[in-house]
């Protein structure tokens, strides 16, 4: 004999009740035990049961203390989520290789708090509930799991690079919310978006969607319609009825200048941290450029109002009509608040600087939009020209059209490919009958009757690139021409108006924009932060939101007196390599992007109704199902869990671990599998909704089950008042499993009693072959079922379950073998007592070199003298893998196997 400790230790395979019993017995004798369990928790089948027969004790109440004891016993090394890979050697000196599957969570850090699970967007069938309930990709198998540690169910590599999330300035969890939409979980999708973006409905309409440009699906066929899906998710939610979270208040006050996207995003995050937030807004309405810069037909005011309303419900106060620097001094604000965030935007227009600019009829684009958006009376002439090529120019032109201008055109000095407006917007404007005159710019305006009458333009050609990188437009000499025009809208750009911060000492750039540390949002003055257009000049909504969030993070740390550290941001969006693109093309069939439908052109230009109609539920699910990340089973690596985990326990790069141990003996206790009953087509399982298996029924009665212990039938949630239990489904059947599964007579009796206890009066019928009530107090249990719980036993094996199409009631056909009459019985629910088979015995038997009987149970050569010994010395078996048996028998056998193993390892000394 060799080895040292190996002699005194035992490997137990399987953490069900038999394995736990054997482990504890051996550990208490002072031997070292390695308990290996394949799933992330011990507990086995017993954990799934509601009650145990014949005492009707709560299964978990008996089991849980044993599980905890096994986990905390100093002599037991518990390896869950692990598998035995190889066994060599012989009795007293086995060498065992164990593979510890990576849970992708550092279990030494995980506290089992469950924050990760809440955010996980991947919904999978819950094994513990036989698929009747759902779990997330990061999960614990059941609430009482031991160890209470989370596991990431990661099965495949994500087929894309999640470039969308890196491209998004706010790093919205795009993968996650698209997955949730594909799963039909729209509310959850909205919540997930709102975590990084407090204005999903607005952004879902107006975002420039850099995510879509980066989307890796775009390399395969077409990018995902990410923005439209965001809008869809937001439109499924009644924002006004959203729950408002309760937050613990700090006593800190923050002032924000400007209620645009940057100010609102910062206010939202700060309010959620418990700070008091007041926003000062110069305009009569809140929302900044979202409110006054974007026309109603792109973003209905009502939607924005609701989103701002929710932020107000979080405790944010918005004082509109208060212009800082005029109505109130910045200094005064600073004195009354603990921190200040300046997000005043860029509301100043740019001048044309040319003759006739002051004429009535010439108006700045941004002023024009603001006036229209604030409901002021704005008149446009019959002939309107819009100068500029950006989104504002397009917005102005389409707005002018809707205000009744007969001829609207856009005049732009470069060519189509240089237009800053999005291709989508450009297409829309042309669809609406608004031409764009490229390579043209105005030079002068001429009056007539005291107002604008004509405009002189010059044709341009493109020259060398200028500072912006675009080719410089150069006037073509002598190409001047004049056209008659009533209104000119000059949409040349916007600039921040930062006069009011000057005297306060905030440092400004040469171009008049506030200078900040781009990573923290801090200005040169302590406690004063800035972000959004006032810092960057005119940019996009989502950039402003990102800036607001970044500043809020810094402000929160500042208020807590913590050093302002830079929040970890994403990396550059990555592309799929050429090989990867080819591979994905092979794996995933090409599928066209689902396009949004618009209001018909003729109708929509009549008023300011929203142009885009949004997705229907079917369209949204179809589009969401295209996402490459969603093509895989299990975790999609959106890293939401990592973001939420306060213990920093998520470890995506964790590898499987392989360990080797020496043991003197091995106990096999892998338990049972449930026999697939679908080949027994006569019972309609899988086809008739109200036909369930006994283990499913067990989950439907258990408090930890999918219905929280309310016994309801699957088809319509109705309470089943008449239940039929069919015994021997697959057992005692030459065509399936010829043996008796041993426990069904009794568990059916127990389940019938439970049904009655859930709903007194329930009528249960148990169709049995021979009632095998062989155990202490079992016969009395059956008698009680008959006498006290309205249970009838009929000796017959039904041959057919039909269905009443009107109420989905199953109809059981059977021969009453006492009267020899063939009958049928309509019930509310049919419970099939399916056969049970030894679990994993085939693979393990090969590895362990033991023999199995014809049904796969462990072969026991000497059933009378050595009833737990396999065909190989030093290897023992207990529980269902040994032979069909109930819990008390399994426990007894567990102790038996432990005793035999102890005999071996203590032997001879």
């Amino acid at each position, binding site marked *: 004999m060799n080895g040292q400790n190996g002699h005194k230790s035992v490997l137990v395979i399987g953490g069900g009740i038999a394995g736990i019993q054997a482990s504890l017995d051996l550990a208490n004798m002072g031997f070292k035990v390695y308990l290996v369990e394949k799933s992330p928790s011990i507990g086995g089948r017993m954990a799934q049961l509601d009650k145990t027969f014949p005492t009707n004790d709560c299964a978990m109440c008996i089991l849980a203390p044993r599980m905890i004891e096994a986990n905390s016993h100093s002599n037991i090394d518990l390896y869950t989520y692990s598998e035995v890979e190889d066994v060599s050697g012989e009795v007293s000196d086995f060498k065992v290789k164990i593979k510890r599957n990576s849970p992708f969570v550092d279990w030494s850090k995980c506290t089992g708090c469950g924050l990760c699970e809440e955010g996980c967007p991947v919904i999978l069938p819950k094994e513990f509930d036989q698929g009747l309930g759902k779990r997330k990709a990061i999960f614990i198998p059941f609430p009482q799991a031991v160890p209470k540690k989370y596991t990431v169910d990661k099965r495949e590599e994500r087929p894309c690079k999640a470039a969308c999330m890196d491209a998004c300035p706010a790093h919205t969890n795009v993968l996650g919310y698209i997955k949730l939409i594909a799963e039909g979980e729209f509310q959850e999708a909205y919540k997930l978006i709102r975590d990084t973006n407090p204005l999903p409905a607005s952004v879902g309409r107006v975002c420039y969607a850099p995510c879509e440009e980066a989307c890796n699906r775009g390399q395969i066929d077409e990018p995902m319609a990410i923005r439209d899906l965001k809008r869809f998710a937001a439109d499924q939610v009644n924002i006004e009825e959203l729950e408002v979270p309760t937050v613990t208040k700090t006593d800190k006050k923050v002032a924000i200048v400007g209620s645009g996207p940057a100010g609102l995003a910062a206010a939202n995050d700060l309010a959620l941290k418990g700070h008091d937030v007041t926003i000062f807004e110069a305009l009569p309405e809140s929302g900044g450029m979202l409110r006054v810069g974007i026309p109603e037909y792109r973003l209905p005011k009502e939607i924005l109002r609701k989103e701002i309303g929710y932020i107000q419900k979080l405790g944010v106060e918005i004082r509109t009509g208060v212009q800082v620097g005029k109505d109130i001094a910045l200094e005064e604000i600073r004195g009354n608040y603990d921190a200040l965030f300046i997000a005043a935007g860029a509301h100043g227009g740019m001048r044309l600087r040319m003759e006739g600019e002051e004429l009535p009829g010439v108006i700045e684009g941004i002023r024009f939009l603001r006036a229209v958006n604030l409901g002021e009376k704005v008149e446009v002439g019959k002939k309107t020209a819009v100068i500029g090529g950006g989104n504002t120019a397009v917005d102005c032109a389409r707005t002018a059209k809707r205000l009744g201008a007969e001829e609207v055109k856009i005049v732009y000095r470069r060519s189509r490919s240089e237009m800053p407006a999005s291709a989508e917007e450009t297409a829309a404007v042309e669809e609406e009958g608004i031409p764009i005159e490229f390579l043209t710019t105005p030079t002068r305006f001429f009056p007539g009757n005291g107002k604008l009458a004509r405009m002189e333009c010059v044709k341009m050609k493109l020259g060398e690139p200028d500072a912006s990188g675009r080719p410089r437009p150069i006037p073509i000499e002598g190409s001047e021409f004049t056209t008659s025009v009533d209104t000119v809208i000059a949409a040349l750009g916007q600039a921040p108006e930062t006069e009011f911060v000057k005297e306060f000492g905030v440092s400004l750039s040469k171009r008049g924009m506030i200078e900040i540390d781009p990573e923290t949002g801090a200005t040169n003055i302590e406690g004063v932060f800035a972000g959004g257009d006032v810092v960057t000049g005119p940019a996009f909504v989502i950039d402003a939101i990102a800036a607001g969030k970044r500043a809020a993070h810094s402000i929160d740390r500042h208020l807590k007196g913590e050093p302002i550290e830079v929040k970890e941001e994403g990396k550059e969006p990555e592309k799929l390599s050429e090989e990867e693109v080819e591979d994905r093309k092979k794996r995933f069939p090409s599928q066209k992007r689902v396009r949004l439908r618009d209001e018909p052109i003729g109708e929509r230009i009549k008023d300011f109704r929203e142009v885009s109609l949004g997705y229907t539920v079917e369209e949204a699910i179809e589009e969401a199902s295209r996402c490459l990340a969603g093509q895989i089973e299990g975790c999609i690596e959106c890293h939401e869990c990592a973001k939420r985990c306060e213990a920093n326990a998520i470890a995506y790069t964790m590898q499987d671990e392989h360990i080797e141990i020496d043991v003197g003996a091995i106990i096999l206790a892998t338990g049972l599998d449930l026999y697939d009953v679908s080949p027994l087509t006569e019972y309609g399982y899988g086809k008739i909704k109200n036909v369930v298996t006994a283990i499913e029924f067990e989950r439907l009665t258990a408090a930890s089950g999918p219905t929280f212990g309310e016994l309801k039938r699957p088809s319509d949630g109705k309470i089943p008042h008449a239940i039929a239990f069919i015994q021997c489904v697959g057992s*005692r059947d030459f*065509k399936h499993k010829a043996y008796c599964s041993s426990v069904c007579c009794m568990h059916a009796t127990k389940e019938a009693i439970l049904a009655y206890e859930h709903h007194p009066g329930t009528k249960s019928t148990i169709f049995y072959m021979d009632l095998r009530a062989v155990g202490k107090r079992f016969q009395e249990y059956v008698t009680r079922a008959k006498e006290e719980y309205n249970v009838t036993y009929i000796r017959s*094996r039904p041959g057919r379950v039909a269905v009443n199409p009107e109420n989905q009631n199953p109809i059981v*056909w059977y021969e009453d073998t006492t009267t020899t009459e*063939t009958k049928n019985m309509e019930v509310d629910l049919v419970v099939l007592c399916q056969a049970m088979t030894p679990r994993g015995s085939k693979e393990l038997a090969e590895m362990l070199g033991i023999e199995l009987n014809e049904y796969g149970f462990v072969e026991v050569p000497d059933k009378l003298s050595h009833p737990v010994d396999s065909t190989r010395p030093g290897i023992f078996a207990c529980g269902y893998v040994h032979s069909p048996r109930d819990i008390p028998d399994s426990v007894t056998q567990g102790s038996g196997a432990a005793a035999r193993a102890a005999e071996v390892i203590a032997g001879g000394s």
Partner: protein
Amino acid sequence: MNLEDIIQETKTYYCLECGKCSSLCPISRYDPQYSPRVMVENALLGLEDEIVYNKKLFSCLTCYTCQLKCPSDVDYPLFIQKARVLATAAGQHGDYAHSGTLQSIAMLMARSPLKQNRLEWLKKDGYRTSEKSDVMLFIGCSPYFEPVFEDIPMRTLNIAEASLKVLNSLGIEPLVHPDERCCGHDALWMGDVETFKKLAEHNATVIKESGVKKVIFFCPECYRTFKLDYPNYVKLDCEVMHISELLAQRLETEGLRFNEVKRKVTYQDPCRLGRHLGIYDAPRKVLQAIPGIELVEMEHNREESICCGTSCFTNCDSYSKQIRVERLLEAKATGAETLITSCPKCQTHFRCAMVNKGEEKGPDIEIELMDLVNLVATSLGG
């Protein structure tokens, strides 16, 4: 052979008396007192008279529904077949439909020599047959059934004609033998082993002398009999095949050029072809290969198909009728225009149910009926 031998041979002693057979039996559903389980139980109890003199012994459709699901794997249809031999020996028989005409025809055919005019139908069209062919098309009783079921109206020869047409379009010029006889299926299943033996021996001789290597059947009963029963009595040195199998095989190897037939159809699995021989896919493959055909399944299909209600033209009663009505209603519920089957007898029985509705206002069970080969012939022809 006595009852004990039958029990041994069919392993009825495994019976657990669970009654699953009864609850599956199409007869028991309408005749609650008909219990296959009791029949077996009586045998196990040695109550021979309860079996031999039981009129319901001849009610069993031998459809194999019970056998396929019996947990003890008892071959009840075989048990019935053997028990009927005992009953026949005791002078018992079932209630013959059509005044026993069809039984008489079989018995007449068992006489040798016999002058038959089996080939008259071949004369009218341009069918190609060959006396020297390797392949024989077995026609069976079709020429005899033709006049019997004229009033339903069921044209059994139509199926024979279509089968020949189909074989011709596959490039096969088969032998159609002038002196083949009834396959003996009904005689065997009714317990008349003597008649069956004579017919089997005659057919075996005829086939051997003709030198064919393959016999094609369009009737699943003939096919089953040749494939499963003949080997127990005679030596047959040739391959046997149902025409749907041949078509499916051709589809796979060479493909078939079908013309479009726009029709929504459903398919009745004949018990001999389906449950007896396990051929469910071949006819479906053929149907699905025809452009324009939309195949919709009835609620009970394949193994679970409901029988056409009568076997061997015996004990055809009100229960048989109810089974047919149930099946035809299932067919109608699919929304199919046509109920396709590949057994002439299924079709005969369904037609009978539709014609003999009587005076009572029953449910609407009218549906177009057609044999698979007729559909294929239409689609291949042109």
